[in-house]
């Protein structure tokens, strides 16, 4: 029994770290995979999600509904952002980085000026369960399940729906997809909106675990970017999952023994070493492997 509880506790630590990284990076990697654009305002979109959730929660909505509201509110905002600004930067990835950085500064400081330095936080739902001598937070267990669910949902969206088919076609060869009648403009807009919505969704889910401030997005920025850099853009789902599992394996022991900050440093060092070995990220590695497997044997 004693051994079992240790195993459960270690799995829980890995799980929470992995879920955290996955939630941070999911929206970012969806946008990157499709348009080769890094959305530097990602942290601020997560902040918007947290703000929306907090406001909705204060207005009396139950927390799960507030999370869903955040998804749609930030998703719509993302669509507007894509129409007005981001679409002018397709094919100019460095320009897109700079302009989204400007947007992120505008959003965080604008929120500060309009809504003040903080919002009332959301209490963490669910209690704790005891396994042996360890106590596990029910909410984090739910988050692990939800992030797994989000990945499955994305897999379903990309592999089983018409939008997913069009999206994958556009990713592979936008010109060819356009020639075959796919409205790539619409695919881009919907993807950006989906990525923004996922950022809002993650922000809302992580809101109870953080203090809700205009600059809260910054704390998600470093882990999210490292996860995306390691994941790469070749295959959204493989990249997100592979990289968050890999990085969780690095961060959990270092963070546990040496503290949260060194855990983050270890993430950066791991990212540098991993991209030295796999320049296009985990996803390209996976993609090559699956391509080789699916090639018909002659």
């Amino acid at each position, binding site marked *: 029994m004693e051994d079992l509880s240790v195993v459960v506790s270690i799995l829980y630590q890995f799980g929470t770290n992995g879920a955290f990284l996955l939630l941070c990076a999911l929206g970012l990697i969806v946008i990157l995979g499709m348009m080769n654009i890094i959305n530097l305002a990602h942290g601020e979109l997560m902040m918007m999600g947290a703000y929306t959730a907090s406001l909705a929660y204060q207005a009396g909505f139950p927390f799960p509904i507030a999370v869903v509201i955040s998804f749609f509110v930030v998703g719509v905002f993302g669509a507007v952002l894509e129409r007005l600004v981001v679409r002018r930067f397709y094919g100019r990835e460095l320009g897109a980085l700079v*302009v989204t950085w*400007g947007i992120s500064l*505008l959003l965080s400081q604008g929120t500060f000026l309009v809504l003040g330095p903080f919002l009332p936080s959301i209490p963490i739902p669910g209690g704790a369960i005891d396994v042996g001598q360890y106590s596990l937070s029910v909410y984090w267990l739910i988050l692990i399940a939800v992030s797994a669910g989000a990945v499955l949902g994305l897999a379903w969206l990309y592999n089983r729906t018409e939008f997913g088919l069009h999206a994958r076609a556009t990713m592979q060869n936008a010109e060819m997809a356009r020639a075959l009648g796919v409205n790539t403009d619409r695919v881009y807009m919907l993807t950006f909106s989906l990525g923004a919505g996922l950022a809002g969704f993650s922000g809302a889910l992580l809101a109870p675990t953080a203090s809700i401030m205009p600059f809260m997005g910054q704390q998600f920025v470093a882990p999210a*970017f490292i996860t995306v850099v390691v994941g790469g853009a070749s295959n959204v789902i493989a990249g997100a999952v592979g990289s968050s599992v890999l990085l969780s394996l690095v961060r959990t022991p270092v963070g546990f023994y040496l503290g949260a900050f060194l855990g*983050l440093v270890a993430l950066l060092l791991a990212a540098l070493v991993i991209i030295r070995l796999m320049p296009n990220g985990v996803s390209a590695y996976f993609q090559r492997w699956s391509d080789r497997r699916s090639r018909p044997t002659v």
Partner: protein
Amino acid sequence: MKRLFRLATGPEDIGRSPGFWGAFAVLILYLFASPLWLGEFEAYNISFYLLNLPLALGLCLLWGYCGVLSFGQVAYFGIAGYVYGIIAGNLVGTGWGPIAGELGGLAACVVVSAVFGYFVFYARVQAWIVPILTLVLTLLLETFLGQTAGYQWRVGNVQLGGYNGMTGIPSFQVGNLVFYGYAFYYFVLVAVVLCYFACRMVVNSHFGKVMLAIREDPLRAELLGYDIRARQLGVFVLASVLAGISGLFYVQWGNYITPSQVGLVSAALPVIWVAVGGRTSLLAVAISTYALNWVNYSLSSAGNQYALVIIGALLVIVMLFFPRGIVVMLAEAGFRGSLARLRAALRLG
């Protein structure tokens, strides 16, 4: 000498006519003479606008001429400043402490940027990864320096100081000559002018041509036999040294440095200076850096809670409407205008 001048007037920057060089010489003379009528306080302010120029020029080389964008140039600014503070602070009263500090600060920049750059460039990563990782590096540096409050975080007798930063950093000194006030102004002015000419010579040299080739088409440059990884790494280290020079001047100017100097806002500033000026011209970047620092300094004394909004809005507006930079676009419009006037005059005559 002639060869050096030819390098400086080569085709890779705006401003090559004799008229331009005349105006440039007048400007330099003006800057050298201005302490005659400026108060010491104003000279001190102008040294602050000037001391940011190497940082901006380095990013201009990296982004505009080599096609590698870095969001983390301020990391080297901070590294040089902190290392200088540690070394010079421990050698107070020796006379040569500040020089050792400067060398140590720049050496630290070279080592960090070379190691970081090796992993990034030799992996041949995609273009968007460099800005992301440099940004993460600088944010981590800020977090690290922010938690160094307390007595246990000291090197010799210098405390790192957490979020309050490192204070009492010695001014620059050679023997018994301490550089402050007018002397510091001249020190910065000479160094900045030298940095500008050095950058201009670099972009017009053979090395610079290869740099431009890499920006235009990395694959083609490589097929012509150039090791683009080594070249990119070289420019990255050079830019980090330039950023380090600015960091050294900064701590010598204000005698303090805080972790917010390597924070998100500070990291955004050089990108804005370069974007507003026009990343393909060193001169335009120098002009916009000076002007924006002056504006920012005046604004921040009026209350800076809008500073971030203004910076963000400026960045979005410039990227949307002046993608090649305001100064560069103005200069080209002026050039075309005078060309048209010349043609009209010829037609009349």
